[in-house]
């Protein structure tokens, strides 16, 4: 196989060859060892404590750092380090508004429910969110319904997160020879079995490695392992961002300079093409992604600038054929970028060792919104390839502001953490810590990846790789290649910290909520221990198998499950904690109402658009409709049915006069 000396240039070399390197592999191995060490220590710590409370809730003993960082790391899923940078890169500064709700997320998600849910859970020793609801209303059907909803949503989400973790790992380890060899071996061993994945051998290997690491440390260490690995992962994330920020600013000559260049920048044209050779080669020819091509101007073009296109995927011209299969290509449209690319392209022409390769363009399209408009990356609604309304019209901006804060508060995985801190002093300090943490993560990310448009232009069609590509480029340019490996751990840490929490959530739902609460309340400690280990492991393996053959519309499924959980749980839990008159009928109706209206909008969207996309009446996201309906039905049903039992109200909302003096202003 011949690999021509491609004309991928300068910093783009990192993209063309994948970001993989020995440092990434070493980072991953060291990181995994550290995670195992934490799990081992967590298991040792657990020996003398009550098993169920300790395994699923850490004995409600979390201090400030553990509570703050596990909360922050679980909320900041893989999306924060793959999807979010990709969106910033693709749409510009408008992402600051898209994520702006995170200014208020810590105080909303922790402050709204934390004190009460922690107190209510302690009153009866509730371990899970279904436990809390079941005990609060003394209603087994409500507890069981909450459990089923959690398992339903989380199972889909877990599969999606496993795939996301594997894709990140594949990006990090791409082109590491040892990884390729191991992938080939695994591919041969699993060929024709259930374990063979249509996603490819490297994906398969990365999925095995990712799943093995998460399943082992979560199963063995339980909640404490999840929390303390979250702490480490949270630190890796924030340190990674804080190192990237100055490097990015130095690279572009300061933020103001970067914005002056963005002021001239126009969205690229996207399309597909075949790479062609004049003479069919005698051996396969590989043309890496990020290869630049100078092509003829269109006949009706008045443009004086050369026309430069960039491939976004590796193209292979098979022996005896003259052309590759179709690959996505991108055409630069910003004059300054075209000049840079042209200069570099001319310098590299001399290194070419094969007859000239050329592009046979099949189709090129302008962006639906923002095409040929300089500076669209500096203002709203931001350029958008498919939708003429732009990336962030006002209704969508409002929906996201509501969604991040409210949806975060309604996630059962967050609620469980709110049941695990040791006292309110910890809560107060943790809210401050998470507030500062998010400020240090999200605002710098916006600046970094707006700068990335300058130093890594042309990655729109592979924007999910912008984070590792930027990390490698920035560290290599200053001669700190070793640091690239550390930075690459940040997105991996983010997705791992989410997956472990979801895994434990499903396990606790099955072991505690289904078996112990509904089937055998008198099960022995020893049996429940064995069952917890087994179920956690089995759920992890099942999710891994699901991710071998992942469903379509993965990202949409993640969004659907996250918003669906909030639509089902936020209103019932909030009213259960704050409204004494609320009853089981109201909670069940609110939960069912939120679930079905949210589902109906997605099914309606499927019917209308023929794909997994929600119908949004008045431009408002399904989560907001779900919350509204859940709230309205909860209130109406509660008022139309009998008040709750007096003993329950007394237990959860009242104290004896002599016991009422237990609080102090801070």
């Amino acid at each position: 196989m011949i690999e021509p000396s491609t004309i991928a240039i300068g910093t783009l070399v990192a993209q063309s060859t994948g970001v993989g390197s020995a440092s990434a592999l070493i980072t991953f191995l060291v990181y995994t060892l550290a995670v195992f060490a934490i799990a081992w220590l967590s298991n040792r710590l657990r020996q003398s404590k009550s098993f169920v409370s300790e395994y699923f809730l850490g004995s409600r003993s979390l201090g400030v750092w553990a509570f703050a960082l596990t909360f922050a790391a679980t909320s900041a899923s893989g999306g924060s380090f793959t999807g979010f940078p990709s969106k910033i890169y693709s749409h510009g500064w408008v992402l600051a508004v898209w994520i702006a709700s995170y200014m208020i997320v810590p105080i909303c998600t922790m402050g709204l429910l934390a004190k009460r849910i922690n107190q209510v859970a302690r009153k009866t020793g509730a371990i899970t969110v279904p436990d809390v609801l079941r005990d609060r209303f003394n209603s087994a059907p409500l507890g069981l319904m909450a459990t089923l909803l959690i398992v339903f949503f989380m199972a889909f989400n877990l599969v999606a997160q496993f795939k996301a973790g594997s894709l990140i790992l594949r990006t990090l380890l791409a082109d590491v020879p040892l990884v390729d060899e191991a992938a080939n071996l695994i591919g041969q061993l699993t060929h024709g079995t259930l374990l063979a994945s249509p996603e490819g051998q490297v994906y398969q290997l990365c999925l095995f490695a990712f799943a093995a690491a998460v399943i082992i440390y979560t199963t063995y260490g339980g909640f404490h392992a999840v929390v303390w690995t979250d702490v480490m992962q949270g630190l890796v994330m924030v340190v990674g961002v804080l190192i990237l920020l100055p490097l990015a600013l130095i690279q572009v000559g300061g933020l103001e300079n970067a914005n002056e260049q963005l002021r001239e920048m126009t969205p690229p044209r996207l399309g597909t093409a075949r790479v062609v050779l004049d003479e069919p080669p005698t051996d396969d020819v590989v043309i890496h992604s990020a290869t630049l091509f100078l092509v003829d101007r269109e006949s009706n073009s008045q443009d004086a600038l050369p026309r430069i296109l960039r491939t976004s995927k590796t193209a292979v011209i098979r022996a005896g054929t003259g052309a590759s299969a179709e690959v996505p290509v991108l055409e630069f449209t910003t004059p300054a970028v075209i000049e840079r690319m042209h200069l570099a392209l001319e310098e590299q022409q001399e290194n070419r060792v094969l007859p000239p390769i050329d592009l046979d363009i099949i189709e090129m399209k302008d962006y639906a919104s923002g095409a040929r408009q300089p500076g669209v990356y500096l203002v709203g609604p931001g350029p958008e390839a498919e939708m003429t309304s732009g990336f962030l019209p006002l209704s969508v901006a409002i929906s996201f502001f509501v969604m991040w804060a409210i949806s975060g508060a309604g996630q059962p995985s967050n609620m469980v953490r709110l049941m695990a801190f040791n006292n309110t002093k910890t809560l107060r300090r943790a809210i401050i810590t998470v507030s500062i943490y998010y400020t240090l993560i999200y605002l710098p990310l916006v600046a970094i990846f707006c700068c990335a448009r300058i130093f890594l232009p042309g990655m729109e069609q592979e924007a999910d790789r912008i984070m590792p590509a930027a990390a490698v480029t920035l560290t290599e340019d200053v001669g700190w290649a070793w640091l690239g490996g550390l930075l690459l751990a940040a997105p991996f840490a983010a997705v791992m910290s989410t997956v472990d929490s979801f895994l434990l959530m499903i396990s606790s739902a099955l072991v505690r909520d289904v078996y112990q609460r509904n089937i055998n309340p008198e099960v022995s400690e020893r049996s429940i221990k064995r069952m917890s280990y087994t179920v956690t492991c089995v759920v992890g393996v099942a999710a891994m198998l699901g991710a071998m053959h992942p469903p379509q519309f993965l990202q949409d499924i993640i969004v659907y499950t996250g918003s669906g959980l909030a639509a089902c749980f936020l209103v019932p839990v909030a009213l259960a904690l704050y409204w004494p008159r609320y009853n089981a009928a109201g909670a069940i109706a609110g939960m069912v109402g939120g679930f079905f209206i949210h589902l109906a909008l997605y099914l309606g969207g499927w019917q209308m658009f023929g794909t997994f996309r929600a119908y949004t009446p008045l431009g408002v996201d399904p989560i907001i409709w779900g919350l509204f309906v859940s709230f309205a039905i909860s209130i109406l049903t509660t008022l139309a049915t009998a008040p709750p039992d007096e003993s329950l109200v007394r237990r959860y909302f009242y104290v004896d006069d002599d016991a009422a003096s237990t609080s102090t202003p801070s």
Partner: protein
Amino acid sequence: MKQAEHIPRRKLDPLFVHARREAIVILVVWVICLAWTTAVYWTWGLGRSPEEVEMYWGIPDWVFVGVVAPWVVVDIFSIWYCLVFMCDDELGHANEGLDLDEEVAQMHHADQDRVDD
């Protein structure tokens, strides 16, 4: 069975009272933030000519005023809220296993009733 409106005069749980007051303040602040950020975006950032955009500390003016500045203000508010406004409350003893014990007791009671019948 007695109903909720017949509860004898007792004192509301102070933690419940504090948490409710604190939650109301949070909701008010959230609404203010939503209104401020989306209003600035709507009037100053959406559909504006890029030529008009000025830079404050290297950040587009509408992003600085609509997102960065309120973000810093909310951080300062959060620090004040947590250190000054929020009360320290006693969360109470964790009655580990109480719910299960109650269920087992109810179950045995029901079994006993059946045997007696």
